[in-house]
């Protein structure tokens, strides 16, 4: 496994907002097929780091490479097309669209028909739209969402909204999936379902996953490797076992030990 070239390579990446260094000197490597966790106390810069990876922010220092392609400065939609897709900490679905249409939006970059062919309803429009619809329906079946596919997204219960968001991110056909606190606000049973779902999609779509999570049970349970971020800097890296016993991590989470 160690011989594989990294899928994602982050070299000394960082961003400053004016004088504030939100994230700095992050070095991180993900190999094809890995499931890696990114943890850290509140305000450590985890989501900011995701925003760097997905192009919402442009890194002010360092570089980010996916499969050897440099991603710095690319628009978010271009980075998605290169193969990084994400979910959000606070769910961002297209609320007024149906579940099916939410997934279809993610298929948009696959569509080969032009605006004109849609306006004049040329045969290409119908064949492409039909193809997208079939693909989306099939896709929703994997996530057990096909029975609610005509429901408006905002009317779904919370757990299903989370699932739909993951489904939509996967529909964009990523090589690397970024999950930003997927278990936030879930009860233990939903969290367990989510863990099973992550295991399932990983196997099925041959994915590499990087996930931010506060739920230690989930992180320790599913991740092979864990990075720990604190005050915008990586303070530790290792297996769940190593992380659990790392004094720096304990310090960051619980404060300094009184001796």
């Amino acid at each position, binding site marked *: 496994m160690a011989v594989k070239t990294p899928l994602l390579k982050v070299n000394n990446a960082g961003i400053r907002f004016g004088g504030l260094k939100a994230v700095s000197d992050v070095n991180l490597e993900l190999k094809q097929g890995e499931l890696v966790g990114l943890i850290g106390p509140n305000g450590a810069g985890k989501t900011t780091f995701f925003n760097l990876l997905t192009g919402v922010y442009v890194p002010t220092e360092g570089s980010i490479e996916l499969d050897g392609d440099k991603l710095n400065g690319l628009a978010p*939609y271009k980075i*998605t097309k290169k193969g990084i897709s994400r979910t959000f900490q606070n769910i*961002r*679905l297209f609320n007024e669209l149906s579940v099916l249409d939410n997934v279809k939006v993610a298929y948009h970059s696959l569509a080969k*028909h032009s605006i004109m062919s*849609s306006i004049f309803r040329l045969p290409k429009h119908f064949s*492409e739209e039909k193809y997208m619809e079939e693909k989306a329906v099939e896709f929703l079946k994997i996530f057990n969402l096909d029975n609610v596919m005509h429901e408006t997204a905002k009317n779904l219960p919370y757990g299903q909204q989370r699932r739909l968001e993951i489904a*939509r991110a996967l529909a964009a056909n990523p090589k690397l999936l970024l999950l930003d606190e997927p278990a936030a606000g879930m009860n233990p049973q939903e969290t367990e379902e989510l863990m099973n779902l992550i295991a399932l999609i990983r196997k099925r779509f041959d994915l590499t996953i990087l996930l931010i999570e506060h739920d230690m049970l989930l992180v320790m349970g599913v991740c092979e490797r864990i990075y720990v971020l604190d005050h915008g800097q990586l303070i530790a890296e290792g297996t769940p076992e190593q992380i659990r016993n790392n004094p720096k991590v304990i310090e960051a989470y619980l404060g300094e030990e009184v001796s």
Partner: protein
Amino acid sequence: MNMLKGAKGFWSSIVLAVVFGIAMQFLITGEIINFFYVNTLYFIGINIILAASLHLIIGITGQFSIGHAGFLAVGAYASAIITMKLELPFVLGLVAGGVAAAIAGLIIGIPTLRLKGDYLAIATLGFGEIVRIVFLNIEYVGGASGMTVTQLTTWPWLFGSILLTLLVIRNFTNSTHGRACISVRENEIAADAMGINTTYYKVVAFAIGAFFAGVAGALYAHNFFIIQPTNFGFLKSFDILIFVVLGGLGSMSGAVLAAILLTIVSTFLQSYPELRMIIYSLVLIIMMLYRPQGIMGTRELTSFFKFGKSAKGGVNDGSKNTVA
């Protein structure tokens, strides 16, 4: 199968519309409806086009643009120059009006559409005023005293333009491109993260909307004998905005319905201009208090005739609550 059903409903509604158009033509040429009503009808038609075109920009793509009268003015003047100064046929004037407005849309859209919410509103408001001032100061088009234009707008041209506008906007909306625009409205950050080129779709929607506003401008110019910069002030922009908001943001049938209703109301209130604005404002206030989502919400008329749920259906309240 579903698509076939949709296509059937689509063609039958077109046939119905054409039958309606021909019937109206007979009523007009047979002078069965008097001049006053015909004039109101033209007014309604032009407002329908304006409402639908702004609906694409605000209702579908979620870009709060309040300078729509600017595009109307560009279309009106461009077409008037074609027919009056260059003495070319009216159809060229219609096309030129649309194209000129679309180009204006691109020029204003590309720099301003990166702005959000209030900032975009202010920028488009500024654009509308700039257009008005520019025409006010060009002697070639008559300056403040305006430009006389022959009456060339006839029912077939008007009706054809309405049909084309509604069809194009409907077809655009119900496609992957329309969904891309809606995703921008719903959540721009998520749309970006799903691989949608958000700036591109904002500009496209803006240009298509501007195009049809320009066509409406051409029809408008050739209906009222004279066009003056004062016809295209920001109050005109607000009139159009009101159609879209009152009809329900995101519903084209709502915008069309509101355009029809409000044009009729304001035509009959024309003899009391001061009362007109009061009633207008009252209608808006009451509407926003009791039905903030507008006449139709985000639903379309067709969703009432379908069994099951429409593409955009599933709104909490049932169809029975809909005031129309």
